[in-house]
């Protein structure tokens, strides 16, 4: 009886099966307009949101003013404060009580209170009068007072930075008389724009989100839509299936990297100091690691909904603990342990290093090796967990 004698070479057969799955996945993806759109829209929208709306450099906080002194000093002090651009004085109140009410109502976030005896206070204040001889800070009265809505910690922190407003200009001295205690030498990001730090970080977050999401549904979907029973009755091997499911999304990941860095560069002038090749290698390592993580989820989850929930379960710590939101060094030890277990953390270090500090792969080898090991381990785990059985 006739029988196909096709794959004398098992490597060729394996190659054909992987190719078959890759082509099939790409065709299905191309038919799925929504998913296809999301590949472009997710990085685009997130980048614009984080770049424009979510600005951690706080400026122009609406503030109120109580000026009981009504002196030339007070007017000059107010002008100096506004010149810092941190606050805009939008309301004027007659008394401290009235100002307090305004803060409680939420009309303004902060109020500057300048007492009637402002001139008197200034004259004894060492920041104004270097010769005042007043050295006992216990009894020293401040020049004025800030009333702040502490509910928003970011605003409160910005106002706190206004505490040490230098008074030299007010006293008629030039600023260079002011001798700083420390000298700060700023490496990288000289303008201190947070967007420079956010864009590379966003690369890690967006890739975590989309890559895990794509593959976490990959195996479950076949199961849910009833394709699995046919597929496992064919000669396809678990590892071939896993690799075939990953490869198309590597391409998708690279497209997203291009979008994020391209727009980051064009709109927000985020420099890419390091080599593009180094960046490509780092991105590929992370894309593979995230896709593998998704595959592992996919072999554990029973339904697509479960897969989605597990994706979110990974995504939240990736956003909070990877160093995207808070510096790794400032985290409690337990958080650092969790953080080290997330692929996003390792990529975050690599990408910030490459984009902002021109680091070479050699400098980042520990994170690179970690990501590679994670991918191989994850693939093996997923392939072992995947059984060509229904029971």
């Amino acid at each position, binding site marked *: 009886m006739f*029988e196909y004698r*096709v*794959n004398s070479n098992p490597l060729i057969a394996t190659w054909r099966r992987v190719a078959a799955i890759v*082509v099939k996945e790409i*065709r*299905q993806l191309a038919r799925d307009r929504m998913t296809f759109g999301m590949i472009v829209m997710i990085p685009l929208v997130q980048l614009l949101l984080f770049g424009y709306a979510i600005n951690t450099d706080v400026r122009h906080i609406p503030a109120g003013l109580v000026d009981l002194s009504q002196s030339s000093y007070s007017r000059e002090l107010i002008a100096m404060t506004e010149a810092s651009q941190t606050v805009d004085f939008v309301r004027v109140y007659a008394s401290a009580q009235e100002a307090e009410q305004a803060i409680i109502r939420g009309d303004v976030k902060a109020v500057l209170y300048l007492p009637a005896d402002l001139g008197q206070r200034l004259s004894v204040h060492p920041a104004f009068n270097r010769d005042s001889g007043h050295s006992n800070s216990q009894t020293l009265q401040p020049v004025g007072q800030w009333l702040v809505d502490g509910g928003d910690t970011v605003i409160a922190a910005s106002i706190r930075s206004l505490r040490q407003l230098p008074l030299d200009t007010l006293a008629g001295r030039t600023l260079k008389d002011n001798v700083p205690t420390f000298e700060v030498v700023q490496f990288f990001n000289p303008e201190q724009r947070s967007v420079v730090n956010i864009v590379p970080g966003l690369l890690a977050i967006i890739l975590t989100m989309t890559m895990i999401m794509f593959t976490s549904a990959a195996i479950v979907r076949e199961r849910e839509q009833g394709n699995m029973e046919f597929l496992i009755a064919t000669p396809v091997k678990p590892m071939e299936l896993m690799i075939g499911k990953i490869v198309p999304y590597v391409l998708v990941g690279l497209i997203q990297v291009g979008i994020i860095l391209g727009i980051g560069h064009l709109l927000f002038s985020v420099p890419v100091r390091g080599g593009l090749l180094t960046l490509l290698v780092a991105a590929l390592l992370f894309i593979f690691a995230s896709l593998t993580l998704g595959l592992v989820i996919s072999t554990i989850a029973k339904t697509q909904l479960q897969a989605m929930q597990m994706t979110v379960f990974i995504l939240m710590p990736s956003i909070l603990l990877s160093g995207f939101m808070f510096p790794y060094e400032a985290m409690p030890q337990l958080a650092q342990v969790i953080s080290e277990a997330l692929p996003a953390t390792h990529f975050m270090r690599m990408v910030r290093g490459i984009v902002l500090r021109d680091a070479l792969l050699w400098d980042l080898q520990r994170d690179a090796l970690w990501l590679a090991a994670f991918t191989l381990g994850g693939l093996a785990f997923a392939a072992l967990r995947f059984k*060509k059985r229904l029971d």
Partner: protein
Amino acid sequence: MSDLAINVRQMTRCFGKNIAVDHLDLQIPRGTIYGFLGPNGCGKSTSIRMLTGLLTPTSGEVEVLGQRLPQYAEALRLRIGYMTQKFSLYDNLSIRENLSFVAQIYGLNSRQSRERVNELLALYALDKRQTQLAGSLSGGQKQRLALAAATLHHPNLLFLDEPTSAVDPENRREFWERLFDLCNAGTTILVSTHYMDEAERCHALAILENGIKRADGSPAELMATLGAHVLEVEGDDLRTLKSQLTQCPQVLSTAQLGTRLRVLVRDQTEQPQQWLQAQVNGRRIEAVRPSLEDVFVACTGQHSVSSATARAGSDSEQGERHV
């Protein structure tokens, strides 16, 4: 090499406390079409999944094409084809894309794949819609596509799980022509069904109920060894007569067919025709040839769902008789 395509001893599968397949014995010769006939939930799909190596039997020995399962499941993949009960190809791929995918999975190179796919498209009359998405096909078209995919790699053994459940009688006949072609080329086919007319086409079949094999053999053998006499009563007020006869211990089952009542009288009854004549107040009685449906009813003690409306004897074939 054994001339049995499938040799199964005491195959059992439990799901928790439920026994889906209960100590099943099967000997299926090569080159035949073998049927699994039974109602919903009787264990047809579960049996087929064990025979394809997708489910592990709780106990029993399974040998398929001379290879032991589940140990040699992977080695058998190239030699068996499986058409699942539920359509399991990709809805968002076209007919051609689906078949090309399957061809590549079975290791055909691109030229072989193109030739084989073209051949199948022509054979199953799908070439005019080869770019249509599988999800938008009709039941009969889907079924032809699924059969094409299951036979693409020329398997020695083909499993078909209720292949014609969504197919009209005309297409069903056409479908069976293809099965006989395949069988003629040497393929052994195991097909599950709950249609009587399909079961009658098989070389041999097993009647399953609650995971237990109630009877097996060729349709003719089964009808010949039926443990009951088949009699038909003609007359009026058959509903009353039916409920009256159902009470009698001699009667295995009754089923109304239009103006006639088909009665299965147990073999142990002496002079069954005379006995029945005494029960029916002068209505006319006639002995008829047993049908496979009678065998089924006698074996399982079950009434078929549609026997009251479907055709009478085994003389015509157009009825869609369900179990």
